[in-house]
């Protein structure tokens, strides 16, 4: 087998090993479960109030948006945070010191990212199906829509996450990433229809993937009548694929450039400098 084939296989094994490590580590599981649990509790208490003029409960209506947000966060935050952390702690440098190690590392990252995305969605979706009356997936079509929105969402967000992660080598900068993201969540119609917001805010929200992922999830999980409260009164699949497609193209062009730049700069002394910086902070 040639070297790239070996590196791909090693990368897949790396991804699976990291998934196993996550699933067998208490603190890791806790951080995976924390937000979904809170969300489900809130949705559960909102199950009796309905959207004005419909018989869809507020909880059920907000669920798809939450799913979209979960997927976007797995791609954006999960990937960028792990890059920043593993750059600081020297994981990346070790990968660089091994032949084709960076390639293997990246393959592993993609596997872990995809798993995280699917897990983040299912961990909210499956309990939601049991807990919320009226929130259910009735057709195979709905599952299929869910699957392609998930796939498209991950392909669009993971390269952006990698780009963000390659720009900083300090995990403590993660707050700078989270703040605008949370702002974006607030205007992306996750918890309530985006049409309630001023036009220019809607415009900004529609430039980013979070809104479109939420819309995609709603199109899969809500009855067609619910499209009435969306912009243009439809699920707008063409626009959805268009915007996410642009992000995919941008990500696939620039992420490799930025990742290569990042990898080129790794050396023993840069890792040592980061360690000193981090230890100083601790003291």
């Amino acid at each position, binding site marked *: 087998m040639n070297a790239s084939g*070996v590196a791909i296989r090693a990368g897949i*094994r790396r991804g699976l090993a990291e998934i196993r490590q996550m699933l067998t580590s208490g603190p890791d599981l806790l951080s995976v479960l924390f937000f979904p649990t809170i969300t489900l509790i809130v949705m559960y208490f909102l199950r009796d109030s309905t959207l004005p003029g419909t018989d869809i409960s507020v909880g059920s209506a907000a669920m798809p948006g939450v799913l979209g947000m979960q997927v976007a966060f797995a791609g954006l935050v999960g990937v960028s945070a792990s890059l920043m952390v593993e750059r600081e702690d020297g994981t990346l440098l070790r990968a660089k*010191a091994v032949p084709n190690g960076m390639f293997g590392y990246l393959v592993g990252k993609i596997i872990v990212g995809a798993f995280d995305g699917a897990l983040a969605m299912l961990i909210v979706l499956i309990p939601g199906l049991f807990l919320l009356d009226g929130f259910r997936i009735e057709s195979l079509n709905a599952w299929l829509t869910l699957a392609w929105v998930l796939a498209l969402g991950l392909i669009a967000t993971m390269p952006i996450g990698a780009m963000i992660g390659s720009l900083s080598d300090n995990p403590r900068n993660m707050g700078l990433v989270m703040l605008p993201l949370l702002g974006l969540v607030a205007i992306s119609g996750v918890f309530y229809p985006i049409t309630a917001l001023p036009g220019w805010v809607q415009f900004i929200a529609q430039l980013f993937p979070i809104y479109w992922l939420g819309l995609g999830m709603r199109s899969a999980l809500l009855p067609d009548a619910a499209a009435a409260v969306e912009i243009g009164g439809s699920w707008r699949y063409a626009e959805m694929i268009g915007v996410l497609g642009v992000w995919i193209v941008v990500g696939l062009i620039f992420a490799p450039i930025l990742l290569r730049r990042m990898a080129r700069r790794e050396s023993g002394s840069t890792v040592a400098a980061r*360690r000193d910086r981090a230890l100083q902070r601790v003291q």
Partner: protein
Amino acid sequence: MTEVDKGGTSASATQTATEVGGLADPGPDTVIDVRDLHMRYGTNDVLKGVTFSAERGEVLALLGPNGAGKTTTIEILEGFRMRSGGSVSVLGTDPAHGNESWRARLGIVLQSWRDHGKWRVRELLHHLGSFYTPYSTEAIRRPWNTDELIEAVGLSEHADKRVMRLSGGQRRRLDVAIGIVGKPEVLFLDEPTAGFDPHARREFHDLVHRLADENITVLLTTHDLDEAEKLADRILVLAGGRIIADGSADALSRMVSTKAEVRWSIGTERHVHSTDDATTFVRRLLTEHGSAVQDLEVRRASLEDTYMKLVYGMESGLAGDEDAAQVFFGREEQVTVAAEPHGRDIDEEGAR
């Protein structure tokens, strides 16, 4: 000239010859060849023409004060840092353009911190080793068998532990294991034993000796002069942006001073005498006092003395922007220093 002095001169002469030889085409066994290496950060010249080479199976220690550019030099050789000028060849390849099959022949021992903390020792070594399988050759089977490697670095009892549960010394052994998992032909060790207790240090030295026996070329940096003397076939002193000394610990000490210190006691009296010709002096001493001479010791300048003299003698001799290496580097001067007949008059008073 006495025998001791001749020894000193010929050691320096050989060393000069190697340096001159280094400027010719590298031989088939030259693994590392660095010529006139320059490195500049902004307006700061860190390396101003570093030249040295290493043969297959040689262990080289790179010494020098903090900030002298040891790590920079090693990182350039590893291909992790681009140089500003000069030519560098590692295993016949310019590290700036080394491909992955070149990288597979290199071992780099990195300082660990928190990376791969959740991995188990065996799992991590097996994983990192698997990247080397396509680069296995008839002569060198890659990677190292995981369990044999764990045994070799003395981690058998901890093979199934998570990396974060290892002690500092165990973690360092794991770093070495990761560095050699691909059966490297050249191994780079940047301050490998920093923070080791004496026992761990001894075990690490044994490991490096075993690697050198397998014909691996080792380049290490250290601040521990004792370690350099124990491990290295050849010591390079990097200061002021150049290699100011290159030779065995013994040759280096002769380079700085040809004097040896003779200590003895007669009755309750202790004596110390410094001489160029210890053999003649001791012979005379014994002829004169016979078995009354007790606790006889003859010592050359220690590597530490030599190092201090070389590095700080040179630094204090500098005026402003004067080129550091000019003071000590000139090859003729090296020979002159070594051959200079310091205190040739044997101090006969000392024998009394």
